[in-house]
């Protein structure tokens, strides 16, 4: 089988952003879970690996700052960089995503109709992206309240801090589960990608896969469907 033709799906900038996000998510999860499951063997093991209670906190906050830094950069990237802004416009949720979801359910459960046709980002990928965005804000805000609890309590009552702690703990657990259950299924265990989708490493996707998973994007790129010149540039060919 000759090597499939590929195009670049994620540019280097996005791959680096994804890599930093991945590392900080893993570290924040491990240090967070150590605290949440402190009374189990797993928690105690994680706590020991992380260098004890104090060190665990330092690592957690260090990677929180790295994540925040990434968030600030990402915000700049999608607002003020042309490539970033165009990419962002493709991932903004639209009415089509809801229709796609319904169509997907009809197709999967009832076996009626066609599977929905997706552009560069299908409704699952948009859900994951916006899940990360929402989680980011919840975790950062509650995290800061808990980090600077003495300052926060100048204005907030004790019960509010307790609620914040519950929020931070459960939201963190939720993000962890979604990432490690759903996201890892999609990019690793999914039979189409097993053992691993290579997009996050070299950013490349085969044309065959592009046609299968993102048919609208494929059409836009190759069958002369009406599209702007920039978008063509954004998905420039390789090999």
């Amino acid at each position, binding site marked *: 089988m000759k090597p499939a033709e590929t195009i670049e799906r994620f540019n280097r900038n996005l791959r680096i952003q994804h890599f930093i996000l991945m590392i900080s998510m893993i570290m924040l999860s491990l240090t967070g879970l150590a*605290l949440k499951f*402190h*009374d189990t063997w797993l928690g105690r093991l994680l*706590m020991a690996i992380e260098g*004890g*209670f*104090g060190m665990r906190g330092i690592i957690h906050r260090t990677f929180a700052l790295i994540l925040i830094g990434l968030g600030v950069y990402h915000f700049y990237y999608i607002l003020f960089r042309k490539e970033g802004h165009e990419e962002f416009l493709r991932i903004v949720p639209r009415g089509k995503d809801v229709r796609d979801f319904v169509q997907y359910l009809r*197709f*999967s*459960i009832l*076996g009626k109709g066609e*599977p929905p046709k997706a552009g560069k980002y299908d409704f*699952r990928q948009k859900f994951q992206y916006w899940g990360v965005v929402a989680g980011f804000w919840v975790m950062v805000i509650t995290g800061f309240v808990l980090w600077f*609890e*003495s300052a926060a*309590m*100048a*204005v*907030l*009552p*004790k*019960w*509010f*801090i*307790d*609620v914040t*702690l*519950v*929020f931070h703990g*459960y*939201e963190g*657990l*939720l993000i962890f*589960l*979604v990432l490690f*259950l*759903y996201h890892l*299924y999609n990019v690793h265990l*999914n*039979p189409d990608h097993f053992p691993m989708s290579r997009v996050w490493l070299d950013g490349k996707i085969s044309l065959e896969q592009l046609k299968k998973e993102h048919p609208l994007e494929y059409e836009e790129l190759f069958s002369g469907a009406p599209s702007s010149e920039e978008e063509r540039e954004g998905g420039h060919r390789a090999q």
Partner: protein
Amino acid sequence: MRNKCCKWTVYLITAGAMALAGVVYGQERNAATAQLQWDRCLICHGKPGLKKVLPNGRIISLYVDRDQLARSVHSKRRCEECHTDITTIPHKGEIKKVDCRHCHYKGSPMGVPDTEKYLEYEESVHGRAVKEGNPKAAICQDCHGAHDVLPPTDPASHVFKLHVPQTCGRCHLKEYSDYSKGVHGKQLHEGNMDMPSCVDCHGEHRIYRPTDEKSTVYATHVPETCSKCHAAKQIVGKYGLSPERVETYKESFHGIATEFGEKRAANCASCHGYHAILPSSDPESPIYVTNIPKTCGKCHPNANLNYARGSIHVNPKSKESGVVYYVSTFFRYFTTLVILGLIIHILLDIYRRIRLRLEKEKS
């Protein structure tokens, strides 16, 4: 041959019997004669007015109450068995304090309680201070008494539970006064044996400074020490205490930090105080509502009344926790639902793939 065997057996039995009789007789004789022997010493020491001026000016009584001694556990001991440096009358040279370790040591054949306690004492804050030459440090007789040593279970003993605070308080005045003001002290003074005396928290012979990691009242060991009663169903039920106090603390940030050896984190005593522990309804208590800012302020700069709005011991799974309960319940269901949804999604995805493959094979 057989005869010889018999002979030896008879010899052995006779010798054994004689030895046993000797021991029994010896002890009997000891008991009977010990108290007669006291007379020689009591000629002088039996007079209530007998006193001595020490080189440092302190006056000590040298009187020995015969009845008291006869009631004590040492009623069968002769004076010089303890006062080993008294060999002549009148006494010559420096007379030392009695060293109980003549008889009381692990494995002693003297019929004393065979425990590790003697060694424990030597390692304790008191034992170490004595070794370092501190003349004020407590030795055995400071707590157990001198001529009136009784078993700790005897209500007249200096170390009987109800008397322990007074005994320790002879040196630890401030602590005794604070303890007596607290709930534990007040009720112990009224004769309530459930209440902790000093040794229930600090240990008996194994007493260390609170800053010593071996201490039961070392910062990170305090929760465990308090939980001996405050997590015990018997005590909690009997006195109507909240059964979740220890558990909720352990689940709090303070509790988790303490569990992993972070001694800067608040333990029970940081907020509730230690010797003078009072209920939150008492205006003197550090956890009385208007005292909360000051108490929390020990660690949290500029603490205000916000620290009193809500409860410190929060169980998110209990309805009494209000908003915290509802938020955490929401999250438990929400997380379960989201995860279920995603699992269903994954299963659907796999199902769709299988169906597609089957259809392909058909056509």
